[in-house]
């Protein structure tokens, strides 16, 4: 069988032959590097879907190389919206800055009485391995490179609903700009997450929490009520009053 890998130096796909047996993409890449082409560049770590190092796109869809079984004719490319360093190796620093901007951490600890149900509440969200698959799949980045994005917002949600968090409002305040309202709720992130996390739902929940804190959907306000036709406010209601 053959797979095709996008090489950065030539910006063309290079075809590699593989033995006809079941194998993970990571094993295939390692095999190619060790036996055929030592210049092929990718990153990998644990082989067990937990270190988040080896995410790539296969036939346009984000996959962990260690968890994807190679098919004849597969096209392998680097993640989207990350500067390509070489071949499948990308720079993840900018993506990781979204965690800082969203202040996705425990702000003020307060002791709480947690239960099994509380554990379950954010169990899936805390399975995140920061592989950046969701970031790569998110179409918002095509128009807004400053979007906080799925993994940062999922993490913001996880902390903001932790019973030990005494200042969730601070997180909510920090995810308004280029944050919860900029998501189109297309669900591409949810589709590609290798750990079954649903950032779309987390963002929806964060919108609810934002409204509770007095924020409104700015896009809703401008699109529905902010057009010249309505700007006079002649209908007798305030467009910012909490729709």
């Amino acid at each position: 069988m053959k797979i095709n890998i996008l090489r950065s130096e030539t910006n063309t796909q290079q075809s590699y032959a593989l033995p006809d047996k079941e194998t993970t993409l990571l094993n295939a890449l390692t095999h190619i590097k060790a036996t055929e082409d030592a210049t092929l560049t990718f990153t990998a770590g644990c082989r067990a879907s937990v270190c988040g190092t080896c995410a790539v796109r296969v036939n346009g869809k984000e996959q962990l190389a260690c968890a994807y079984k190679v098919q004849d004719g597969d096209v392998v490319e680097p993640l989207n919206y990350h500067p390509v360093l070489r071949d499948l190796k990308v720079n993840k620093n900018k993506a990781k800055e979204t965690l800082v901007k969203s202040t996705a951490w425990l702000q003020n600890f307060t002791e709480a009485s947690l239960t099994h149900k509380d554990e379950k509440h954010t169990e899936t969200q805390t399975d995140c391995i920061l592989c950046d698959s969701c970031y790569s799949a998110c179409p918002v980045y095509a128009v807004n490179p400053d979007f906080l994005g799925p993994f940062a917002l999922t993490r913001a949600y996880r902390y903001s609903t932790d019973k030990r968090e005494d200042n969730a409002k601070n997180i909510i305040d920090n995810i308004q700009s280029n944050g919860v309202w900029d998501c189109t709720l297309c669900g591409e992130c949810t589709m590609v997450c290798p750990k079954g996390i649903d950032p779309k739902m987390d963002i929806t929940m964060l919108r609810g929490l934002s409204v509770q804190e007095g924020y409104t959907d700015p896009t809703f306000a401008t699109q529905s009520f902010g057009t010249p036709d309505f700007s006079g406010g002649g209908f007798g209601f305030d467009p910012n009053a909490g729709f």
Partner: protein
Amino acid sequence: MIDVLIIGSGGAGLTAALAGKEQDASVLVVGKTYPTNSQTSMAQGGMNAALGNVGDDHVSSHIADTIKSAHGLCDENMVKKMCAEAPQTIQWLESIGVPFSRLDNAGSGVETVAQRQMGGASAKRACYAQDYTGLKILHTLYDTCLKNDIDFLDEHYLLNLVTEGGSVKGATFLDIRTGEVKQLNAKSVILATGGYGSIYHGYTTNAYGSTGDGVAAVLRAGGSVSDMEFVQFHPTALKGSSILISESARGEGGYLVNSKGERFVDELKPRDVVARAIFSEFKKGQEVFLDVRHLGEKKLMELLPQEVELCKLHEHVDPATQLIPVKPVAHYSMGGIDVDDMLEVNGIKGCFAVGECSNAKVHGANRLGGNSLLEITTFGKYAGENARNHAKNSIVSEISIHQLQQDKGYLKHLYAKDHTINFYEKREDLGKVFYEKVGIVRNNVHLSEAMGILNAIGESHQNMGLTDKSPTNNTNLIDFLEFSNALQLAPTIISAALTRDESRGAHFKTGFESLDDEKFKMHIVSHLEKQA
């Protein structure tokens, strides 16, 4: 100048960074990948602390279990320190938001943290987060580092420590992205670079990068390594892929059975005992399987969701209905950089080592499951504090760039030279030789053969080199440097194993099946001969 330079960004490095940063010390964490990519993410089962949340437990029992499993080779004061501080480490992890699994006991704070049974433990002592304990601790530590404005330098590969007059002055790194060789000067250095399990390439649960980079750097800088022969074999890795299936699978009630469906060992014995029992089944021509079917799908998905997924993906086995084929593979390096009770490297002042790279003498001849996450967090803090204090008292002087120039020269030479041998093949060979001859059950004939093969590989090292000559993002170069580090450490393991004519913990030798305290209740320490 940086006060505390931390090399390695796993759980030990991140904890050290948080502790080091207190009182306004400047801290920089340098890693060869990104902080959350580390081996810590792979720790599954749990972290020990005698909280007594599920049945009675006491710190003294934790200490006793750990000492027993160490088979006479631990420093009891270090064990006491680690175990006694475990409950407050859990309290600290609770305070930064680690999402532990919980009990419904109407308690408050850490009283609600769930605890499970692990091998060799006299109580349900391992605090956990499903079977993602390491992942969730690591990521919470990372989030907390971002909160505390810790500086990171990603994708920088450690080349050498910079030392002058027996004191550390910094380290040299290869910037993987640009290919530039840099020297970073610091008042204190903490090595948190992980273990050397990847010498057993292809026969280890470890990530590719666990090549003992920091341990080898200490050897080259004139420091010592100790207890290198003690390599833990985890009883249950997936047969085909060597991927780890957590000990908690047995802690939760899983059985080990052979091809005849018979159980052959108490599954909750320490890892060395269980690994050897499996090995002797193999010798009888039996296969060995982990059987968790009786736990039922619901409980499996609740307690071991990651394991279920990995079995399906890599072995085409559904643990709810099928047996899981397993084999023991290299899992953890008990030995490592020889440190004193301040975690300062013996022979290099101001240089500290913590986590799997370090031999803090808490695990001795065999580590208990649940004690490594405890070590990296508890001693991570200790290393951070000690390094910070050392930095406070250190006098800044001009630091030579001799090491930097030497490393630049070496890389230039490496790029220029031709090679005839593919080192990737030798990496495979080395892993296989180590698994077969320096493995679970050893003997002096096999060990000598392994040393012979190793010497031959060592001699051919000069005929190995880079196929990829790209100056930037050259992972062929990184693979080569990692393999070279593994190769440098390999003889220290074999020679210590040859010397130790006895059986103790994870080191088991045919012909010398019992413990010989008179001759061997001691640490075997190695260092490089000084070049003339």
